[in-house]
């Protein structure tokens, strides 16, 4: 990875490092705060873009699977805190982080917005499927399950997965592009490859 500024990758000044960290953390917080908002025009069938999923994909696309998994865990816990801990978002976001990092996008596909949108589309479906699986397992194995029948769960999954995937993939560049530019320019040492 060559930096556009031709800076030596190391050492990084402590100030720059703190700036990088705060940009990364700030972007996560922004995505979390966007999640419960219902901005007009962003809604489709009552579903909004899955901002945190977009963030996890943007993070993992040029990093290792383990980095993706950790990001998925952290962001998943944060999202759990905003809704409810069961079924957990951590599982779905960890899967998304690992899969995205395993794709090794830069090896096969040229770096562009469209491929990111495609990855986000696929990952949104994966994430909703993991959630639906958790709900189904709860329904099957828990005595006092409050969830509806399996048929209803998967019907709901279909509706949610499709609209969430479409919306998230359309909004993905808005998160991915600035973040990726920042990381490439100011924190290339953090990226793998």
């Amino acid at each position: 990875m060559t930096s556009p500024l031709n800076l030596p990758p190391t050492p990084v000044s402590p100030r720059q490092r703190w700036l990088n960290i705060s940009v990364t953390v700030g972007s996560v917080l922004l995505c979390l705060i966007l999640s419960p908002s219902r901005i007009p025009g962003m809604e489709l069938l009552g579903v909004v873009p899955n901002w945190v999923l977009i963030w996890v994909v943007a993070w993992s696309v040029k990093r290792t699977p383990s980095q993706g998994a950790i990001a998925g865990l952290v962001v998943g816990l944060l999202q759990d805190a905003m809704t409810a801990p069961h079924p957990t978002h951590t599982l779905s976001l960890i899967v998304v982080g690992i899969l995205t990092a395993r794709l090794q996008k830069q090896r096969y596909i040229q770096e562009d917005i469209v491929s990111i949108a495609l990855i986000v589309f696929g990952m949104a479906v994966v994430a909703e499927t993991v959630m639906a699986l958790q709900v189904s397992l709860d329904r099957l194995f828990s005595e006092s399950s409050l969830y509806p029948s399996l048929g209803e769960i998967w019907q709901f999954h279909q509706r949610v997965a499709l609209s969430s995937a479409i919306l998230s993939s359309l909004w993905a560049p808005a998160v991915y592009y600035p973040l990726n530019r920042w990381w490439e320019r100011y924190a290339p040492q953090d990226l793998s490859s």
Partner: protein
Amino acid sequence: MFALRRWWNRHALKSGLIFLAVGSAVVLRQTDGFVLAEAYHWVTRPLQPGISREERLESSYVLELQQRLVELESQNRSLRQLVEYEDAQSSVSIPAAVIGRSADHWWQQAILNRGSREGVKPGYVVTGPGGLVGRIVAVSPSTSRVLLVSDPTSRVGAKVSRSRIMGYVRGQSNNRVIMEFFDKSPDVKPGDVVVTSSYSRLFPRDIPIGRIESLDLSKSPAPEATIQLSSPLPVLEWVVIHPFEASETVDDPLAPDSDSGRNSARP
């Protein structure tokens, strides 16, 4: 004569057309171009300015003021309703605005702008202009989170107010909820009003929930009814939080056949 005939033979069509053209032009002229004007009007209809520029600007300004007036009137009406509604309720209820929705699609939640600083506690009951909205499940100093009655895990003990038939209401992620009856052949019909039951542990009695829309009495294991919620959950803007102490804790085991409301906070 012969020459004239030959000319006619050669130019019959041409002269006929010319005659037709001139004739129709004369007719149009005589009717003051009535057909042409109409045709022009129809063709350019989309491009026609309705009124002059100044008039248009002025009328849009008037329109803006009218719309503002409508908005203010409707705000005034809804706030007045809220105030009257609040007066009708117990004195300590807390009005709140809906500031957000669930951060995920698998829950039906709403975020309100009143929290523990204003005295909101988990378990308090939230109602809106149409009736029952949900139950507070989490509070922060200045916000609180409501589990809406439309959430799939929400359970509310309910009764049909006409025939006192008991049952419970569960959400299904949209503005219709399912009511399951404990009776095998309940005396209900579409249009009946459903309210919270007096046996409900987590909700005070007699809060309106909605109206029965359709019935499925052959459903196993229990007959079901689809209920149209009376409070417009997807477009709620203002709600009222009522202090309420659940008569027992949520985690207590429920007798399987008890008529109890259960709007579970997730474990």
